[in-house]
């Protein structure tokens, strides 16, 4: 372990690296920052700075890093005068949270079985799960369409939820964490006469909780952002999630569109900040080979 002074001299020596990384970090943050600051501009100021781009008149674009007259008016307008926005926000929630709940309930036991049992066909089955995990949406979109229309589920929230629940990705992530639980703990419980389900529920689930969290946060970000499935399986606009609704308001109501973008970003950013540790652990786990 290096001493604190050693670490500080390290920093001192490496300051160009830190400057470079800070600039890069700023670049990564730039779009988010711009969106957030622009959302605090009133309609007049917005038209002044971005009007030319968004087709609402105005000469050329003025790059203004900070709003001159910050106002919460766009947010007030969004929350009070755009009933559509609430509907879509609620739609997003109705599609994302059932998926997360279902994935956890269905995925946890499956991941436990893969991690802790040896049974005939395990290898082939796990391989199948991994292949399904890497398949892009376009591969499964026809087959999902066929089954959803057979079950007359097209254009319902279930058309988004059901295929999402049976995604194999969370199983893969949770399996990694379940497998890391030391054998000795389970052995001790078995000696004490605990049954298979007791062991799963009272030892596996609590100790594998970071894995469950990782799967949850990764999938929350994925489905909050989902576009392909809602675009394909939903027809009625009243059922669209936020991700499909946002692009449509951009042209006519600029200030509202900035505010709406920020409100949509907020749960994702909060989730990110809250679960960053789990997120990183989950990403790292998805990279480890079987």
């Amino acid at each position, binding site marked *: 372990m290096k001493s604190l002074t050693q670490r500080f001299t390290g920093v001192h020596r490496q300051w160009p690296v830190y400057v470079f990384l800070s600039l890069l970090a700023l670049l990564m943050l730039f779009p*988010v920052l711009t969106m957030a600051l622009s959302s605090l501009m009133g309609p007049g100021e917005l038209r002044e700075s971005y009007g030319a781009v968004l087709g609402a008149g105005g000469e050329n674009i003025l790059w203004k890093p900070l709003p001159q007259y910050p106002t919460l008016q766009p947010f007030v307008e969004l929350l009070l005068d755009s009933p559509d926005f609430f509907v879509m926000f609620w739609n997003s929630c109705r599609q994302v949270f059932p998926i997360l709940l279902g994935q956890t309930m269905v995925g946890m036991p499956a991941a436990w079985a893969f991690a802790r049992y040896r049974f005939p066909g395990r290898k082939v089955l796990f391989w199948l799960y991994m292949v399904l995990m890497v398949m892009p949406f376009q591969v499964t979109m*026809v087959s999902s369409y066929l089954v959803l229309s057979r079950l007359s589920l097209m254009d319902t929230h279930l058309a988004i939820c059901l295929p999402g629940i049976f995604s194999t990705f969370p199983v893969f992530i949770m399996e990694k964490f379940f497998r890391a639980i030391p054998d000795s703990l389970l052995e001790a419980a078995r000696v004490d006469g605990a049954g298979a389900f007791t062991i799963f529920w009272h030892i596996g689930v609590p100790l594998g909780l970071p894995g469950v969290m990782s799967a949850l946060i990764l999938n929350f970000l994925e489905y909050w952002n989902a576009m392909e499935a809602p675009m394909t399986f939903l027809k009625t606009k009243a059922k669209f999630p936020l991700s499909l609704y946002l*692009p449509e308001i951009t042209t006519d109501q600029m200030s509202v569109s900035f505010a709406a973008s920020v409100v949509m970003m907020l749960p994702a950013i909060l989730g990110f900040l809250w679960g960053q540790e789990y997120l990183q652990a989950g990403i790292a786990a998805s990279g480890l080979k079987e």
Partner: protein
Amino acid sequence: MKKQTLTAFLLLLPSFLGTAVFVLIPFLDVFRRSFFQAVGGSFVGLSNYIAVLENEAFLQALSNTLRFLLVCLPLLLGLSFALAVLLYSLPFARSFFEAFFLLPMAIPVASVVVFWRMLFHTDGLLNGLLGYGGFSGGDWMNTDAAFGVLVFSYIWKNLGYDVILWIAGLSQIPKEQYEAARVSGAGELRCFFSITLPQMGDTILMIGVLSFVNAFRVFREAYLIAGNYPHNSIYMLQHLFNNWFTKLDIQKMSAAAVMLAVVISLMFLFLERRNERKERTDS
């Protein structure tokens, strides 16, 4: 049947049943359909496949997609590796920077699309900035530059994700190896080329596959910025699938989906085989 096996099957049952109903069985149906005619349902052999492979839009979309992958994957893997090595060597504030680089991954595409539009619009920020510097910009979205815009937004979104994966790979190399090398007088560069690089083989394959999968998601950006029929240079397989879907051209979609699935499975099989062989020689 052993009790162990029975318990395992019970635990797996809900997940497997769902997967079978929503993915496996319908995919078999798609496989079957890819050999039959849409109307009348007579067996037509490979003619659906031939129709897809001779379809001009398909060839255009395929070549664009391949070009996108060939440009993006090396670029992303290289940049993220360099960044990961840099971050990994930091004495301080590593996780702070990791968080910043990872943030774009969390940002929903739809919520920054206004920003991309403003940035790359003909009268937008980028051209304005170039104007200040005395350069003339261009029409980014309606020329071949659209391809570059898409590459940029893909890198922006995926850089942090890949950095985390690389760091996970780097941290699996035992510290003792570096210490031993340093004791015998090896410098930083020597350590990097003789210890770090040779042990990144598996990591690069795995990250390659994951980045490949994520590359298919760039359709979101392309669609949101440019719509269903974007500039020719960013008309991807995903757009084609979407347009076929709107026309309900199930036959072409089925044949194309089967081909895509086979290619991806083969890639994956190759990766797994390699890993297994490696494990056997290691132990």
